């Protein structure tokens, strides 16, 4: 078993509009087992397109124009994601790689209980489980993310934003994936709730050993939770380094610009000139 979980090589995506937009250009990156990789960049930098693209979640006019994505399964086999047919891909997603989407309020079905929505995951992906087993798993998941098993019959609107985001994390965790892709999972939450969710993600990562790709434009936050950070700009990774290295010794001018755009909470004043 190698140390690498996902190898992305020369990956490119084009939005086939007029004129075509090269959203991701020849990106190469390895995700290691158990690490948190931060994808930083501004809107339009291609970070979401890259993360969705490797799982083939993009819709036309997006076209994957080149490159390869190999998933090194914990069982020892290597899976070429672009060689899977639709059915194999459906089974692969969620089971091996899961997603936490931005804006939990919009991602959950408002007319189904959270218990039913979690139950769905098992019904589809683990057809062998009976009702009692599924229920036990769902309660277990709600306990793990600290929503509490007693909320199994709650509807999304009965939960706070933070709780709903925890339910989304529970869903992503349900099948014990090896990689979780989180797209701005805390952007809509306020700082106190955000901090709790981040702690929980780190804890779960230690407990279950999955890797995380964490997408956000919030670089200060990323510096605190990531092992490594990839800075994207115009479809390219301009810098990839350990979080601390990126902070103390940024190599690329754009990384320096990005770091400078955030006023320091406790550091020297003067970024906002008054």
């Amino acid at each position, binding site marked *: 078993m190698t140390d690498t979980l996902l190898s992305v090589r020369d990956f490119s995506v084009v939005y086939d509009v007029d004129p075509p937009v090269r959203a991701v250009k020849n990106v190469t990156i390895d995700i290691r087992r158990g690490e948190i990789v931060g994808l930083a960049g*501004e*809107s339009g930098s291609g970070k979401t397109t890259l993360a969705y693209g490797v799982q083939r979640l993009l819709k036309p006019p997006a076209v994957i124009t080149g490159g390869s994505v190999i998933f090194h399964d914990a069982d020892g086999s290597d899976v070429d994601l672009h060689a899977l047919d639709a059915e194999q891909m459906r089974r692969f997603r969620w089971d091996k790689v899961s997603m936490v989407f931005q804006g939990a309020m919009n991602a959950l079905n408002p007319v189904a209980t959270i218990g039913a929505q979690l139950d769905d995951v098992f019904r589809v992906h683990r057809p062998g489980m009976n009702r009692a087993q599924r229920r036990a798993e769902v309660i277990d998941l709600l306990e793990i993310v600290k929503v509490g098993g007693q909320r199994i019959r709650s509807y999304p609107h009965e939960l706070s*934003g933070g709780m709903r985001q925890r339910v989304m994390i529970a869903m992503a965790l349900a099948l014990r994936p090896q990689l979780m892709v989180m797209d701005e999972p805390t952007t809509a939450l*306020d*700082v*106190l*709730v*955000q*901090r709790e969710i981040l702690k929980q993600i780190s804890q779960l990562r230690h407990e279950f050993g999955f890797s995380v790709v964490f997408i956000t*434009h*919030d*670089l*200060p*936050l990323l*510096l*605190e939770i990531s092992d490594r950070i990839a800075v994207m700009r115009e479809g390219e990774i301009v810098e990839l380094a350990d979080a*601390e290295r990126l*902070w*103390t010794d940024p190599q690329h001018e754009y990384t320096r*610009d*990005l770091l400078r*755009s*955030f*006023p*320091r*909470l*406790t*550091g020297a*004043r*003067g*970024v*906002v*000139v*008054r």
Partner: protein
Amino acid sequence: MTTLEFRGVTKLYNVRGSGQLKALDDVSFTLHSRQTIGLVGQSGSGKSTIAKILTQLETPTHGEVLLDGAPIPRRGRGLRTYRQQLRMVFQDPFASLNPYHSIRHHVERPLRLDRVVPRDQVDAEVRRLLERVRLDPDAVMERRPHELSGGQRQRVAIARALASRPALLVADEPVSMLDVSIRLGVLNLLADLQREEGLGVLYITHDLATARHFSDEIMVLNQGRVVERGPADDVILRPRDPYTRELRAASPDPEEFFRRRAAQTTGGAR
């Protein structure tokens, strides 16, 4: 000098089934022109209720709001004059501009409605205001909001707010919807305008870092109560209230984070 005063303001909302919610609980503060106050607190702390009362979209249950010592008129010309004195910049520049109208129209409206300048000078004044927010009038005046970037739109919203020459400005999360690289530009613009026009600014945000750099004073709100108020650096660097400390601890601070981590590693090696 213009002074706005909140005196013992309490706001109760009736909540169906569960009685009353105290959104604001005996809040008192003053905002002068030439002064910037940062108002911070988590969701539900009452920040927006203060903004709504300031703009007269809500009325206080108890207490009063005074402008230069006089209560704010509820209607008519008096209310109009008050609103001319106090303007808002909203969070979402994609929602606060009307997609049907040109940029010229947005800036021109308050000039005409409040008769800020004689009719034949309106055009020149629109240009002046757009230049003031560092937009090129010739390039943007005839455009519609969708043709502009988020940062440009927020600049238009600021120009519109300045049109009636207010003494006070309420900016409710004015940069949180903008891309990171342009946030500082817009904040710096607001800071310049504040200084040059002698504006009093209430900067409402949940971002402690920008609040510290942008404001003279910071006021921390928790569950409708002001729990701490003081010079910006004091509140953020030496918070006294437990809630302020909690907020500060939760805010990302890479500088402190790596310093602490380095201290731990050397501590462990010993």
